[in-house]
């Protein structure tokens, strides 16, 4: 259970790593330290050997054996020295600090002798390492370092009075000094313990430190996230995670908050549109249901009215029934008008007048907030075909937004109005398209960059698939997503009636593929190459209109601006920066109105400096592009 926790696993991994690193480090540290201790002892023993030989040399010359034995005995009494002995060339111990060993024979094949006596040849000069050996007398006893020092033949030896040694003999015997390593071993063990303790302390300290940071940076935020996801899964979409810092987990928390916000917005929106839809259905249903009984009342009462022409008294009453029923008929009619989405009622209007009316509505509000309105417009702007009530609503909304963004210290709103010309290529949107049998080819369920796409059924052998074409003329962001390849026998048909959409007798001038043709109600024919690889498209109607005239209104405020993150979202329904104060419907409704007028609305903003809304309305509405 504990090991399943991410924090524990991290701590475990870090502790294991530091254990391995400290262990390897300690091993090599101890090894090098004990090596240098031993070589120190070695050097010391070698020196001792040389000293013994040189101090006994004179006695040897005089062949005073007792004195030699005495010197060796006195050296051997030193505490660290275990044994000092001199062995002659035939392997007999002739002097020793341990009297029991005197006159004993040493086997030349033992390990200590083998270095020099390999292949039965006594060697002259050998290095100090080869003369040294470390061994244990018993398995339980301390380690002992033994060093053998050869006693070379000299001129004085063979010319001495005793003349015991012949001249051709090079080595006369060896001095073997053994020194106990008990002290050294003790130091090494102490060192080992020190390192083990250091390692344990270091690992615990690292573990604790890691545990602290893991808890702070990982475990706690992850638990918060976990808790939040559980809250959301239980339906609490308003749950927001508190700030988790600026690292990846913090960003995860932010995007989680964003996601739940979006979810709850979508839920509200869904609820809202569902409500509107059911209200519309209800109204239509009620109207239809009431219409029938009303028809009964109206037909019978007007029938009676006709049959009782000779009875003025009855006529008077019947007239009232007929009149009131006709009134009910109007009420039902207006109920349905209300339930329907209102169509803009467009007429020629002066844009400057509309703006002035909008300003007059909120003028008092603006003067309270010390906001100055600056108007600049081109002279002689032509009249524009719009629903002046709706457009006025747009400007009122934009001005209110601007004044909300301006702080208490006041500021200004600049309104710039001018006439501009725009080319339709890359701008014109196909809003209605149909097959030769008048079936709509607009797919409201599939959008490319937010606009409903054109749908075409592709039939190849036994397979069929729907492809989607970009509704904006000139952008060509078509989406094919086909599982099969398009070949000569592939058909492009209307999804509803299977009538072919291929333009007979015409091929794409760029690649020779068949050309698809769509009837755009009242706006001629839109042609596009059927191949995935070609960008060829043609819409004579739009091309012939050439450059279109627009009125552009720029509304610039000196307010707080809109952050880069919020900028792409501001036209979405229910997006609001005003917290509880706003409903968030304003800009979405504005967008809808402008779109209904075949215009565009865009926004530019810099945080802290202000915002500019750019509204472009086509001069004429007759043939909408």
């Amino acid at each position, binding site marked *: 259970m504990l090991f399943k926790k991410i924090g524990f696993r991290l701590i475990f991994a870090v502790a294991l790593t530091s254990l391995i690193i400290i262990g390897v480090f300690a091993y090599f540290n101890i090894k090098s330290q004990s090596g240098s201790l031993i070589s120190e002892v070695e050097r010391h023993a070698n020196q001792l050997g040389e000293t013994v030989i040189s101090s006994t040399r004179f006695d040897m010359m005089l062949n005073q054996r007792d004195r030699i034995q005495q010197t060796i005995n006195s050296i051997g009494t030193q505490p660290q020295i275990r044994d000092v002995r001199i062995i002659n060339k035939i392997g007999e111990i002739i002097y020793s600090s341990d009297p029991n060993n005197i006159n004993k024979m040493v086997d030349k094949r033992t390990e200590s002798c083998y270095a020099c006596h390999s292949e039965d040849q006594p060697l002259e000069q050998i290095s100090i390492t080869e003369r040294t050996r470390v061994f244990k007398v018993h398995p339980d006893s301390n380690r002992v370092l033994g060093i053998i020092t050869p006693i070379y033949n000299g001129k004085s030896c063979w010319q001495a009075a005793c003349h015991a040694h012949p001249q051709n003999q090079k080595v006369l015997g060896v001095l073997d000094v053994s020194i106990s390593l008990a002290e050294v071993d003790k130091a090494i063990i102490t060192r080992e313990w020190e390192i083990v303790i250091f390692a344990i302390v270091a690992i615990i300290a690292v573990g604790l430190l890691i545990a602290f940071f893991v808890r702070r940076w990982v475990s706690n935020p992850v638990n918060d996230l976990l808790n939040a996801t559980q809250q959301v899964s239980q339906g609490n979409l308003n749950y927001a995670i508190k700030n988790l810092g600026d690292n990846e987990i913090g960003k995860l928390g932010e995007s989680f908050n964003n996601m739940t916000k979006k979810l709850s917005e979508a839920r509200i929106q869904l609820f809202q549109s569902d409500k509107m839809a059911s209200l519309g259905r209800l109204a239509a249903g009620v109207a239809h249901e009431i219409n029938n009984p009303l028809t009964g*009342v109206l037909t019978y009462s007007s029938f009676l009215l006709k049959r009782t022409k000779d009875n003025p008294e009855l006529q008077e009453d019947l007239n009232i029934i007929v009149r009131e029923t006709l009134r009910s008929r109007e009420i039902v009619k207006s109920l349905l008008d209300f339930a329907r989405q209102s169509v803009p009622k467009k007429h020629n209007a002066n844009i400057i007048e509309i703006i002035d009316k909008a300003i007059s509505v909120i003028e008092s509000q603006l003067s309270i907030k010390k906001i100055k309105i600056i108007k600049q417009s081109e002279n002689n702007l032509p009249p524009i075909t719009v629903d002046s009530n709706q457009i006025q609503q747009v400007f009122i909304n934009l001005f209110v937004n601007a004044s909300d963004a301006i702080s208490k210290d006041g500021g200004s709103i600049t309104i710039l109005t001018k006439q501009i010309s725009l080319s339709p290529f890359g701008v014109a949107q196909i809003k209605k398209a149909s097959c030769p049998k008048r079936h709509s080819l607009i797919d409201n369920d599939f959008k490319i960059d937010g606009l409903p796409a054109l749908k075409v059924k592709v039939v190849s052998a036994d397979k069929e698939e729907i492809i989607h074409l970009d509704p904006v003329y000139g952008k060509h962001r078509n989406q094919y997503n086909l599982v099969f390849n398009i070949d000569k026998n592939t058909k492009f048909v209307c999804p509803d009636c299977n009538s072919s959409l291929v333009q007979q007798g015409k091929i794409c001038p760029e690649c020779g593929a068949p050309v698809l043709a769509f009837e755009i109600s009242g706006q001629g024919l839109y042609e596009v190459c059927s191949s995935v690889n070609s960008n060829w498209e043609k819409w004579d109607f739009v091309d012939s209109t050439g450059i279109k005239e627009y009125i552009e209104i720029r509304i610039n405020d000196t307010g707080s601006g809109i952050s880069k993150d919020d900028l792409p979202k501001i036209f979405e329904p229910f997006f609001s920066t005003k917290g509880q104060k706003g409903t968030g419907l304003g800009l979405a409704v504005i967008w809808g109105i402008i779109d209904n007028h075949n215009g565009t609305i865009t926004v530019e903003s810099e945080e802290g400096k202000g915002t500019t809304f750019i509204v472009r309305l086509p001069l004429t509405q007759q*043939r909408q592009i």
Partner: protein
Amino acid sequence: MSKTANILVIDDEKVIIDGIVKICSLENYSIDVALNITTALEKISKHYYSIIICDIMMPDGDGFQILNELQTRNIDSALIMMTGYSTVENAVNSLYRGAIDFIPKPFTVDELLSSIYRANKYQQIKSKQERSYKDNKEVELFYVECPSKYYRLGHSSWLCEESDGSVLIGVCDFFLATIDSLMEIEFLELEDEIAQGISCFTIKSTDERIHKIHSPVSGRIIDVNKNLKLIPNLIEKDPYFEGWVYRVIPHDLGYEIKNLVPCSSDRM
């Protein structure tokens, strides 16, 4: 020419059928009824009715089925649609597809009777026309067809696009041919809003009948023909040019024109 016509009434509400039966008895029409589309189709296959009055929305189908049946079997019955207000768009579409008129529910006796009267006249003119074709005599001109660049809503009103973006609307000569000579025209006011398929002016004929003309387009009236106000008979003399009724700024011509018949197609 006898006035009686053979009428089939299709509606799922007994009270409406009974009402229509009573009203029609005022003018001595012979009447048959059907409470659903299935029975109606059966009856159509057995008998010939010169006029069929059908509710556009029925529990087991819609008026378009009757329309299709008439067209596939090549029956020349005049079809009048009855509609609730919510189905005006369907009603306008039914005109495009061959119905000759529609009456929005609820309606008065006069509204229904004038519609039946016109349908009856329509049938008479059509059969006279046919006879004149058959006899191969010199073709008699019963009414003037609208000019080829015009659009018409059924046989009642026409629309003509002007270069400044406004449209002129007026009444078709065929409609005038189906009513008695004109006595009075009742106009809407300047700046009034009109909607496609909703009555936009009324013509009172000498026989005291009131005929409502469905507007071919939605929009705002910016001009009313002053000459027509002074001399109403102008509409009968020159219904397509001097006899225009309103000048209108259309709201969404591109969309609504789909339900209008291009007059050029009449000449094929």
